[in-house]
């Protein structure tokens, strides 16, 4: 699958230092349209740092990012969003005090402008939210419900809905099922599968082998900030991937 579909995002020799600590060293990553890449690794292996580099939150100390074949320098998350690169954070990055719709459109709200003032178009936010949640088959009581009133799975669904509301091409998910009750995990995995079908490239960071083997097409392991191993999912096994996480081949 990965060889036939369009290459969306490529990271080449990405290196990131924090002071004297080397978090990433010459890491490479590729993601194609409609593909799901699983990124595994122990705590501190550099998974989250890599994702933050891809989303524009950190600037790499060395190396480059290529989007649809062109090299891009990301100055902020806004830059990566403009390219169609979206991130679903582990801590969900939702504002609990705001309703679902306003969270989905946070930072990119439809507005009517009156001189310098930008007035929110609440009607449009609600319409777009309902249409988008419907498309992803996410069930909530109302788009006006505050996020803090939702369950963990619903929140994760809102976070994913948020990431795909603006024609995302690549969605990066950091531990998408870590905070969920078991019965809610399946729904989120279904959501990932339906995203793939729409041609979105999905990168899933996870500790859970069940998740990786349920949705991913390819898996890569980071170990101490470097590429350690990579394989099509069909050519590997759970035990082998778990070995990679521990640094054994």
């Amino acid at each position, binding site marked *: 699958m990965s060889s036939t579909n369009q290459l969306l995002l490529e990271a080449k020799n990405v290196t990131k230092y924090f002071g004297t600590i080397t978090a990433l060293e010459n890491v490479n990553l590729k993601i194609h349209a409609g593909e799901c890449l699983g990124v595994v690794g122990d705590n501190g292996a550099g998974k989250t740092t890599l994702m933050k580099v891809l989303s524009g939150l950190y600037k790499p100390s060395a190396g480059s990012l290529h989007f649809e074949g062109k090299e891009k320098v990301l100055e*902020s998350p806004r830059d990566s969003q403009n390219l169609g690169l979206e991130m679903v954070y582990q801590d969900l990055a939702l504002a609990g005090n705001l309703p679902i719709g306003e969270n989905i459109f946070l930072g990119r709200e439809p507005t009517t402008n009156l001189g310098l003032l930008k*007035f929110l178009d609440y009607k449009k936010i609600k319409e777009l939210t309902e249409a988008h949640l419907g498309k992803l088959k996410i069930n909530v009581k109302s788009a006006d419900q505050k996020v803090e009133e939702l369950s963990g799975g619903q929140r994760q669904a809102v976070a994913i809905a948020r990431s795909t509301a603006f024609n995302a091409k690549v969605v990066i998910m950091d531990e998408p099922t870590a905070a969920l009750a078991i019965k809610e995990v399946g729904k989120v995995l279904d959501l990932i599968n339906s995203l793939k079908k729409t041609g979105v490239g999905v990168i899933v960071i996870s500790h859970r082998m069940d998740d990786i083997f349920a949705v991913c097409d390819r898996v890569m392991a980071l170990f101490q900030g470097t590429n350690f191993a990579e394989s099509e999912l069909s050519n590997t096994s759970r035990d082998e991937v778990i070995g990679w996480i521990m640094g054994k081949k």
Partner: protein
Amino acid sequence: MDSKDQEKDSLYLKLIPYFEKYGILLLLVIMIVVMHFLQPDVFLSWRNVTNVFKQISWQSMLALGVFMVIVTAGIDLSVGSIMMLSLMILAIVAKAGAPWYIVVITPLIAGFLCGLFNGLGITLLRMPHPFIMTLGTLYIFRGTGNLISGGTPISGFTDEVRYLGHGRIDLTWLGLEKSQYLPVSLVLIAIVYIIFWIFMNKTRTGKWIYAIGGNPNAARASGINVNKILVIVYSLCGFLSGIGALILAGRTDSGYPNAGLQSELDAIAACIIGGASFFGGRGTVLGVFAGVMIMGILRNGLNLMDVSSFWQQVLIGSIIVLAVYVDVLRRDFGTRK
């Protein structure tokens, strides 16, 4: 749980949002009714009602500014000092013989610049908490105000300068008596509160202010320039303190060293009583107004009943604690755990 219980439960749950929105107004109405029964001849008289509004006029500006800051999960301890410094600058400019339209603008600009200073300090110097920056400027601004004025009162402004704080709108054309006028400061409060209600609820910047208070990381990840919004919020807070200075200049006809002393605490108290959360992201403009009114009515009512100001302190303190406890209870019912 049988169906009847469920019905009761769901009705109760349906009422929560209304209680959350309007509960504080209910408290205000109860207070007004109680005061009316305690002081039937005086409390709701034209003279006393306008008096309450005149008394809360400048505090209501400080409270509104502090409210926006609290929504971002910050705090501004310097509003009283900003007001004093703006007032002193106004007094000096007025004494220097500047025309009135220059004089009335100076405190607004001074207040705005003080707020900008706070905002830039908090963001550029990366202060661990706004408490520290604004605690510093609480001293800096008041000290500066005393330095430029020599620490002595400067009195005597023209009627134009005093208009907002002292002006009266004659209502005799409505068939009312001469004593039944409308204080200009009341109209000003209404206009400013409506403008800021629209700002906080209808504009994108207002929504972002709430988002930053709800989850600053979410706001940042959404591409919102959090620091820029914070600078805007602290600047607006300073600007409102400047309006407060202009009102106070009108009311007292004087710039004096103790102006607004400890008023930052009154402003914070009004926000808290009005339902703003110290953790940010929660609170309404209407709530702040109710908070300011509750404090104003309490002081006024207790004065009318000749209760000592020491008791007023005890009561206001108790109301703060009670209001927040009610808030804690409400949240226990309202949110999912």
